[in-house]
């Protein structure tokens, strides 16, 4: 897929859930051959967005097009690979049998051996799906997503349940696949700061609209820390630091926590219970966007 061709297009899409508008006159289009990460606070509609792209949900009005066609067209489905947030496999089917089944649905597919190797499933290929841990099920779901050599890959939190090493390996594999196949990979990630180097663009889903976030901006957020302390005296820098106060508890965010603490000390400001914690990715998205 060339980068100039439109891989995904949503026109005037309206979608509501429990009478709550998730997307209102939503328009979006994206070209192929890139790896993008979709970020947003919980409940912002990220999973709904992917389900609309997969044709699992239908918009109330408007159009969703993948490769110029309706997402439910078999021609589209044969070029799309996906791993949803909630995964489950028939418990009494073995891992190898599951891969055989998924591969059989595509005209052209990766070999079973290469999928087993790429997704580190060697030890488990003869085990039934019920014997797999959450992380192993996730790996199997990813292997299934890539089995049919898709041109569009949609992944909903693919790294959930994986350890740090496996998450790094996953991103390396994803980037390699995306570049070799010139595919469009869209992934929802809970760890955006871990994948800055692999991702071409970040898209923030907020209030039913997608906003592009540069990698530089995401990088700057990598070092955000949460600083909290208590003090009986009013702090003059509350507005400047955009701090929140609850009783005598102060809280603010900073990318230079060392400097902030030095400043507090130099001002001879009386404080106690000082805490500095790195902000986790999900809280960071909630706080910063």
């Amino acid at each position: 897929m060339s980068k100039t061709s439109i891989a995904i297009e949503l026109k005037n899409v309206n979608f509501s859930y429990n009478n709550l508008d998730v997307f209102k006159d939503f328009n979006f289009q994206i070209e192929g051959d890139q790896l993008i990460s979709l970020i947003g606070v919980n409940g912002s509609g990220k999973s709904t967005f992917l389900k609309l792209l997969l044709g699992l949900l239908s918009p109330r009005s408007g159009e969703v097009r993948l490769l110029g066609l309706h997402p439910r067209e078999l021609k589209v489905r044969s070029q799309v690979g996906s791993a949803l947030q909630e995964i489950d496999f028939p418990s009494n089917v073995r891992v190898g049998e599951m891969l055989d089944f998924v591969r059989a649905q595509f005209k052209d597919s990766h070999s079973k051996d290469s999928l087993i190797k790429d997704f580190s499933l060697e030890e488990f290929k003869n085990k039934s799906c019920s014997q797999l841990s959450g992380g192993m099920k996730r790996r199997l779901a990813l292997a299934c997503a890539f089995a049919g050599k898709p041109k569009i890959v949609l992944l909903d939190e693919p790294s959930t349940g994986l350890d740090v090493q496996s998450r790094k390996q996953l991103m390396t594999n994803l980037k390699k696949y995306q570049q070799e196949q010139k595919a469009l990979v869209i992934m929802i990630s809970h760890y955006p700061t871990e994948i800055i180097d692999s991702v071409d663009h970040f898209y923030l889903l907020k209030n039913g609209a997608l906003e592009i976030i540069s990698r530089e901006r995401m990088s700057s957020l990598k070092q955000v820390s949460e600083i909290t302390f208590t003090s009986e005296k009013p702090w003059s820098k509350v507005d400047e630091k955009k701090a929140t106060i609850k009783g005598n508890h102060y809280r603010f965010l900073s990318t230079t926590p060392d400097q902030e603490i030095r400043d507090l000390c130099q001002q001879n400001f009386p404080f106690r219970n000082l805490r500095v914690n790195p902000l986790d990715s999900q809280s960071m998205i909630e706080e910063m966007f």
Partner: protein
Amino acid sequence: MKQMSSNILLQLRISLRDPGFMFTSILLPACLYWFFAVPESGNSYIANFLIASFSAFAFFGVMFLQHAVHTSQEKHNPWSLYLQTLPIPKITLFVSRFVTAVFLGSLSCVMIYGVAQFFTPSDMSLTLFTHILFRLILGSVPFLLMGLLVGRLFNPKSVVPTANFIHLLFSFVGGLWKPPEILPEMLQKISPLLPTYHYGMLVWSLISPEILLQNSSLYYLFGFSGVLLVLLKLTDRLKKFS
């Protein structure tokens, strides 16, 4: 063809390796036959009649329950959702489910036939048994549609007890456990109103020279299928508007 065979193989693996399914759908009809029909099978005619009846009960069960449960889970179960993202034509899924149900239903009937050969004076030939199976397969279409409808109307939690209740009620009142003529008088009146009665007629007419397969039974099964198709279409429309 590769898609079709892989779908059938997967569904057979799922069903045959599931002890719960194997017991309730494959072994239970044979057990019920053993408990309730074997003691009644005093001569070969009654034995053959009860083999046909319980085979109809078993085949109806597999065809109806399989489709009801699958359909109900489609919108809720993560695996079913994933299946919908694969490039599998709907007709492939449908046919593979039907073929799987035919295989499993036949297996269930074979179990009954096997029990009968050991414990009753049945003289049913394999040819006649195959003929019975053939009619059961052809006549099972309304139960497949009934499964689809029940699956659409009930959620995955309530579909299993509901479908089992319908299966047992329709089987008993339709005369698949006891011949309709020995049911209580009120049930005898209701019996011909049920599709299971006419399904039974398809196979009873092969056993008893006194029972003729009336066109009315065939019309009933066709008509019932037609009504179910209309209801299925209606649920499709209601779903679109909701």
